[in-house]
């Protein structure tokens, strides 16, 4: 068989040059349009006065939708006390630069804010960190209740470079050994931030999944690259959640979704009394400084355990002598808002506005109205908000269903995500 013979036989491949130049160019341009364009200026719009603005209503609507779905699940019983092990992927895949500046830096940054947010939302809970690297799992911190100590460990410079493979099985095994001994009323959770697309395990990963299931550990995975079957399978088996991030912002959303407590499982549904202590704070005068805590640091201002009278530096924590959970009442109150969320606001419309006007007219003016061009102002921040349905609407206008007050989008988010009280309702006493 020779090349000459083959070529003569049939003109199978035709001429290479007969592809239209224009067609090639068109294809090239189509590709660039779709994948290489990051023309942020395309988002700019101009209103009738020539002011430039970025239309954010679509984005804001999407965010509200998430809030809404969170509010709907309020009726479901939730785990207040969570024990969460956060495992960060530091394999070779974390070096990829499709998230900026690279996957690892992006993940670590978001994990730090995740930890702060987690403790803010769940003051009674504890969290520990581990990293997966070179096929192993290294435990960075034990489960504890203080955010800052944890955050300090998640530093890219201290952690070293990502390398090697990932082993999900090792991570699962670690979570079982760490979480198994915890009291049954707590929610045991494992959250894996997964950059790799394959897991290289010492044995069968599904055996470890079974162990997790037996120990009531809920495994959730946040992926950054693509859907991996085994992750889907693990999360489905353990009733966790699985999400794959599209970009940095989406990754943040997915991570933050884990700050709200998951619904309680049947195993934890039965009521149980948990013994807790509410310690007293001693004075902060320098003269009253005493040795505090396990490390016996000399501190002024500490908390005294009501059972064994030992001193601890901060709340919430577990007493290092008698093991009693020590908290303060604001912590408990803050955990409660998951159970009694503020009802979600509605997007304002003409009908709602007129209905609200009738209700509000009867009430005495609370303060001097702020003069605005639209005549509408946000009850929270007193800034101007646009009329419902007006052209060139910059932000959404929202109205509380109970007190009928108007709020801007930022205040809506603040009320629902952080404040957990509606100022209009509190103020009006309704």
């Amino acid at each position: 068989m020779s090349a000459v013979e083959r070529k003569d036989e049939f003109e199978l491949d035709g001429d290479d040059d007969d592809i239209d130049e224009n067609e090639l160019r068109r294809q090239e341009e189509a590709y660039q349009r779709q994948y290489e364009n990051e023309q942020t200026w395309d988002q700019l719009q101009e209103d009738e006065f020539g002011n430039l603005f970025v239309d954010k209503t679509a984005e804001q609507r999407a965010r509200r939708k998430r809030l809404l779905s969170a509010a709907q699940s309020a009726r479901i019983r939730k785990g207040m006390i969570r024990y969460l092990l956060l495992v960060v992927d530091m394999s070779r895949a974390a070096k990829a630069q499709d998230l900026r500046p690279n996957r690892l830096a992006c993940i670590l940054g978001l994990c730090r804010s995740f930890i702060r947010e987690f403790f803010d939302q769940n003051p009674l809970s504890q969290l520990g960190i581990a990293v997966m690297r070179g096929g192993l799992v290294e435990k960075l911190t034990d489960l504890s209740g203080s955010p800052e100590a944890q955050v300090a460990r998640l530093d890219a410079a201290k952690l070293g470079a990502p390398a090697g493979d990932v082993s999900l099985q090792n991570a699962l095994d670690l979570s079982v050994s760490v979480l198994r001994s915890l009291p049954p009323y707590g929610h045991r959770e494992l959250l894996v931030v997964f950059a790799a697309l394959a897991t290289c395990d010492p044995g069968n990963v599904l055996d470890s999944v079974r162990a997790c299931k037996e120990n009531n550990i809920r495994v959730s995975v946040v992926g950054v690259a693509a859907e991996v079957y085994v992750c889907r399978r693990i999360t489905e088996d353990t009733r966790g959640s699985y999400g794959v991030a599209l970009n940095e912002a989406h990754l943040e959303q997915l991570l933050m979704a884990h700050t709200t407590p998951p619904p309680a499982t049947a195993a934890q549904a039965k009521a149980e009394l948990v013994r807790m202590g509410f310690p007293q704070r001693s004075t902060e005068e320098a003269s009253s400084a005493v040795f505090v805590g396990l490390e016996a640091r000399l501190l002024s201002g500490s908390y005294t355990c009501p059972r064994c009278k030992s001193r601890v530096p901060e709340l919430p924590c577990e007493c290092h002598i008698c093991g009693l959970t020590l908290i303060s009442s604001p912590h408990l109150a803050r955990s409660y808002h998951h159970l009694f969320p503020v009802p979600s606001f509605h997007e304002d419309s003409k009908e709602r506005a007129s209905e609200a006007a009738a209700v509000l007219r009867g009430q005495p003016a609370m303060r001097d109205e702020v003069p605005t061009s639209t005549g509408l102002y946000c009850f929270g921040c007193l800034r101007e908000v646009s009329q419902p349905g007006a052209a060139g609407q910059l932000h959404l206008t929202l109205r509380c269903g109970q007190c009928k007050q108007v709020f801007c989008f930022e205040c809506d988010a603040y009320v629902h995500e952080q404040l957990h009280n509606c100022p209009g309702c509190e103020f009006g006493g309704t």
Partner: protein
Amino acid sequence: MKFNLEGLTVYFPYEYIYPEQYRYMLELKRALDARGHCLLEMPTGTGKTITLLSLITSYQLAHKEVGKLIYCTRTVPEMEKVLAELAELIDYRAKYLGRGPGSNEILALGLSSRKNLCIHPRVAEEGSRESVDAGCRRLTASWVRERAAERGARGGEGGAEEGGSGGSVADIELCDFFEGHERAGVEALLPPGVYTLSDLRDFGRKRGWCPYFLARHMMAFANVVVYNYQYMIDPKVSQMVSRELEKECVVVFDEAHNIDNVCIEALSVNLRKQTLEAAGRNLGKLSNSIRRAREADAARLQGEYNRLVAGLVAQGALRGGEDWLANPALPEDVVQETVPGNIRRAEHFMGFLNRFLAFLREKMASPVVTSQTPQVFLQELQERVQVDAKTLKFCYDRLSSLLKTLEITNTDEFTPIQLVADFATLVGTYAKGFAIIMEPYDERLPQVPDPVLQLSCLDASLAMKPVFSKFQSVVITSGTLSPIDLYPRILNFNPVAIQSFQMTLTRDCLCPVVVTRGADQMPMSTKFEMRGDPGVMRNYGRLLVELSAVVPDGIVAFFVSYRYMDQIISKWHDMGILQEIMQHKLIFIETQDVVETTLALDNFRRACDSGRGAVFLSVARGKVAEGIDFDRHYGRAVVMFGVPYQYTLSRILRARLEYLRETFQIKENDYLAFDAVRQAAQCVGRVIRSKADYGMMIFADKRYQRHDKRDKLPQWITRHLKEAHMNLSTDMMVHVAREFLRAMAQPYDRGAVGKSLLSEAALAALDATGGLDGAIASGA
């Protein structure tokens, strides 16, 4: 649901129907109304089978004059799947029509070879199909049973209970199940219902009836018969099995994209050196038994001779209950003549076969490649050994008559001589559409002598012709039939409907891309001048490395041939590319050994299940490309390295191309490109098996960029081939893959599926307005 389709009430077992299924039904119904054949393409994963079954059984119900539904599948598992879907449909229908007599209940059964149906404890254990067949005959042949009956009658006074048991009489063993079925005679009936092969076996065990013969017997009463392609196309089998079917039957060929190759194989015979030697030994044995028979029972041979003189063979006087040798030529080509005088006597026939065999041996000894038409071959035969075409034509019938007369039951031993007779009859019968090709050695290994004498059928329409002419409606359907207009030409028929349907999808879950160059901008192709180039091989390797880093779980890669795969894998090994891939995924390779490949596939699936990820390297036109699905996470990406042209130096292909050009005016290039692209489509289609599935399809060859290739792909692929994806380099492809896989990993909104589904109410509205396309267009 139950809905009205242009006046026909259709029972469909699901609550919703896809718009393409509705359109498919409509097209099919019009074809049935017109009593014509049709050719329909609809992608896999759209529920083709249930659509077909649902419409045709509903049609049978409304039009009593329509005969059976004959559903032809390629494999036994497919057959079981069809029957399972049918069972579901019938259960659903029973809700409307009720059960019990008079409620139009359906009898549906699968038919397969004895190997799959036998329940005789010893015979069923036999390994191959031939040995099970022979084992069965040894117990059920008419003369064996007669002899047993005689023996039983003689000893009848002594032991009546022995004859009554119906089992083995004295030293002659019979099959209890066959005897049971025979005793029941016409009373042996299956109650209505759907019977898979295992259902048939269970039923047979319970009643003590032979399931194989029961199924053959019940074919006459069944409404739906599901069996293998061979039973319809291969003249040897179809004459036995499908002869009795009425003209009004609807014949369906599912997964029929390779139907032309099946047709050709059915009429082709390959003879190797070993075959001829074994045939020579067979002849010796036959001569011996003739001599013995003459000594012991000359009357029998004389009787046969007398029958042949009287020309009774043609009238089927010789056919008993065990018609196990049928003529390989097609029914209407068998001239209704008597066997010529020169082979009527058994001894003469032996001499004739000996001469023919000697001629074949001599031909095979030739050191050069020869290719002849049947006429030339016959002429040579006439000159050298004075054997004429007319005599050859009867070779097969004469042999089968002889084997029966000699009461030979171990037919599996006589396969070689049957092959030779097969060859002789085909050569004698057809002057056109065949080629006789003799190759003294394998093209790839010229130093090893391995002579093959091939009688190759060149015309796929020959085997299909009787099917098209006998049956009123023939439906040819598959997921990949594009370019669809070529099929009527190579199969030589006039369909009343040709249609290609698309898949309605709620998201873009197909992502076909054409990669034309590597990251270094050098073109990639398996073109002959380029395929050996180390640069091209490296670029192909890099493509797979990059891909295995961004695609999760399973990847399938197809190469154009085993030879090229071996070559490139060893090169990749030298370049260190395999090791790089292994960092991300395990590698499995298809080999020509079926057991090895099955093992590799098993482990491939395990690797995907456990999250390790794996790459499967396979070959287009191989077993894997044809029959194995890589759905869900088993195939998140499929790569087609190169354009899978056939091996163009093959003599058979050359002869066929020439024939196609002369007879059907199909240009060589057109046919080759058509064949290559349909194989490529078949390969990449392996990854999408349902609408919820998703996968990348990577065509890694510069030539796919050209219109003549691209336009031949099925519409459901080209529709998703965006302009931006037609000319990519490896790095661009990686980018596309990343974006695609991320988008596909997002939660799949099942509610949105509702948009592409039609409910009963929507269909009623549709029927009322009568505007299908308009309504669907506005709905979508």
